C-alpha cells in the first residue's frame, strides 16, 4: 500500500533518528533534504526498510546552483512493491564537489553518477569505475557547469575563401 506524504514523513523521521533531515513538498511529492555525510546511511534505510522499500532509482540528476555556490544532486526514488515515490536532494559546495556513491545500493546509479561526473565534475567517492562516459577521456572541463567557458566556432569568411581559391588544402 502506498504511504501518503504525511505517513512517509513520519516513517522517515522515526526510522532515520540521528540523521539531520528537513522535509518539504514539491511537485513530485515529499522531498527530503539530506546531508552528504549521512547520505549512504539514509539511502540504505530507504531501500531496506520493509514499509518504505525504495528499491527503484528512477533518475539521478545534478544541478549547478552557480550563484549560491552549490551543487545539488537529486534522486527520484520509487517503490515497486509499495507504489510510492520520494525525492532526495543533497547540496554540496561547488568547489571540489564530493559525494558518496550510492551505486552499491542501486546499480543504476553507476552510469548516472558517471554522467554527473563527466558533465558536472562531481566526484562520487566509492564509485567502482568513475570515468567520463559521454565525452572523450581526454576532454578538459565539465560542460554543464555554469562557468564552463567554450568558444563557439565562428564562420571565418577569409579562411573559407582561401580554401575556395585553393590556397589552403
Amino acid at each position, binding site marked *: 500500500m502506498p504511504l501518503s506524504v504525511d505517513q512517509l514523513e513520519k516513517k522517515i523521521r522515526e526510522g532515520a533518528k540521528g540523521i539531520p533531515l528537513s522535509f518539504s513538498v*514539491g511537485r513530485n511529492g515529499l522531498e527530503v533534504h539530506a546531508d552528504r555525510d549521512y547520505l549512504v546511511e539514509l539511502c540504505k534505510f530507504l531501500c531496506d526498510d520493509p514499509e518504505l522499500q525504495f528499491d527503484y532509482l528512477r533518475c539521478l540528476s545534478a544541478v549547478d546552483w552557480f550563484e549560491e555556490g552549490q551543487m545539488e544532486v*537529486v534522486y527520484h526514488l520509487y517503490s515497486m512493491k509499495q507504489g510510492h515515490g520520494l525525492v532526495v536532494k543533497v547540496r554540496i559546495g561547488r568547489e571540489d564537489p564530493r559525494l558518496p556513491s550510492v551505486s552499491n545500493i542501486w546499480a*543504476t546509479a553507476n552510469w548516472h553518477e558517471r554522467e554527473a561526473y563527466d558533465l558536472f565534475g562531481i566526484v562520487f567517492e566509492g564509485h567502482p569505475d568513475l570515468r567520463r562516459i559521454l565525452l572523450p577521456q581526454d576532454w578538459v572541463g565539465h560542460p554543464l557547469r555554469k562557468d564552463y567557458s567554450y568558444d563557439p566556432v565562428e564562420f571565418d569568411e577569409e579562411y573559407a575563401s582561401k580554401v575556395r581559391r585553393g590556397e589552403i588544402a
Partner: protein
Amino acid sequence: MGPQHPSTHGVLRVILTVDGEWVVSAEPEIGYLHRGFEKLAEMRAYEQTIFLSDRWDYLSSMSNNLAMSLAIEALLEIQVPERAQWIRMLVAELQRIASHLVFIAAYGLDMGAMTPFFYCFREREKVVWLFEMLCGARLTYHYVRIGGVAADLPEGFIEALEAIIPQLKSGFDEIDELLLYNPIFIERTRGIGIIDPQLAVNYGLSGPMIRASGIPYDVRRCHPYLFYDAVEWDVVVHDACDCWARVWVRSQEMRQSLRIVEQVVERLKGIPSGNVSAKIPRPIRPKKGDCYVAIESSRGELGVYIVSDGSQKPYRVKIRGPSFVNLSIAQRVLPGAKIADLVAILGSFDLVMGEVDR
C-alpha cells in the same frame, strides 16, 4: 566490437575480453552521438526545446515531444484541452507500434532473417504515412507542443486510420508467424540474456526490458498521465526473462496499443474539433521550481527533470533516456555468454543510440 558494427544500430563500441568462444567481460563505450541536448536546452527558450527533443530517440519523436511538453506544462501549471490530450494519446500509441515494428524488423535481421524486415516495414509505412498526413514529416514530427498539439486532425484522418487498423492486426499475426513462432528463431533466442527480476529493478530497467523479466512496471499504469486510466488495456508481462520474452512483450504491446487507439478514436468522435491548444503565456516564463515528469516511451521510462529559475530559458534539463539506463546492464549480462549470442542479447535491448548519448 564496433563502433561500426551492423548489429549495433548506431555507433556503439563494446570492449570485449574473450576466452575462446566465451565472453569474459564487456564494457560498452558510448558517447559517439553525444550532441549535448541538455546544454543546448539551457541556451534556448522553452518553446525551442521541443524541436530538440525530436532528435533524442529518433524512432519515437512523438513520445519525446510529449515528455518535454508535459514537463514544461507541469512547470507552468496549465490545463491542456481534452481533445488535444486524446490526440496525444493516439499519436503516442501509433508511435509505439511504429517503433516496435522497427525493433522486430531489425532484430530479425540481426538473427539473419531477412524476410520479416520487409513485412514489418510494410506495416510501419502505413503508420508513418498517417503521421505525414498529420504534420508533413516522417521522422522528426514536432507535432506535440506546449499547450496541446500543432494542429487538429486533418480531414479524412480518422477514416484513413480506421482503414489501416484491421490491416495492422492481420499484419501483426503474419509477422508473429514468420518470426516470433519460427522454430529457428525460438531456438536462437530462448534462454539467453537472462535478466532476473531483482537485477532488473536494481539496474533501473524499464519498458519491455523490465516487463519481460516479470515486473509489471509501466509508467502509464504506475504514474498515469493523459487519459490512460480511462481506457482499457493490459500491461504485458512475461516471466521468462530471456531475449525471446523481450520480443514477445513488444509484439503483444503493439496489439495493446492498437486496442487503445481504437478506444481513442471512439472518444475523439464525440469531441468537437477545433480546440487543440491551451492559451499559453508569451514569453513562457515559469515560476521558480522543479519537476520530474516521465512517460512510457517505446523503450521505457522517458523522464525529464526540469528546473526553472524564473527566466525564459530552462535552468537545467536532465533527460532520463530509457536506452541509456537499459544499456548499463550489458556489463552484467554479457559476461558468460557466447560470442555468437552477443548480437542476439544486445539486439534485444532495443537501443537507440541517439537517446543513449543525447
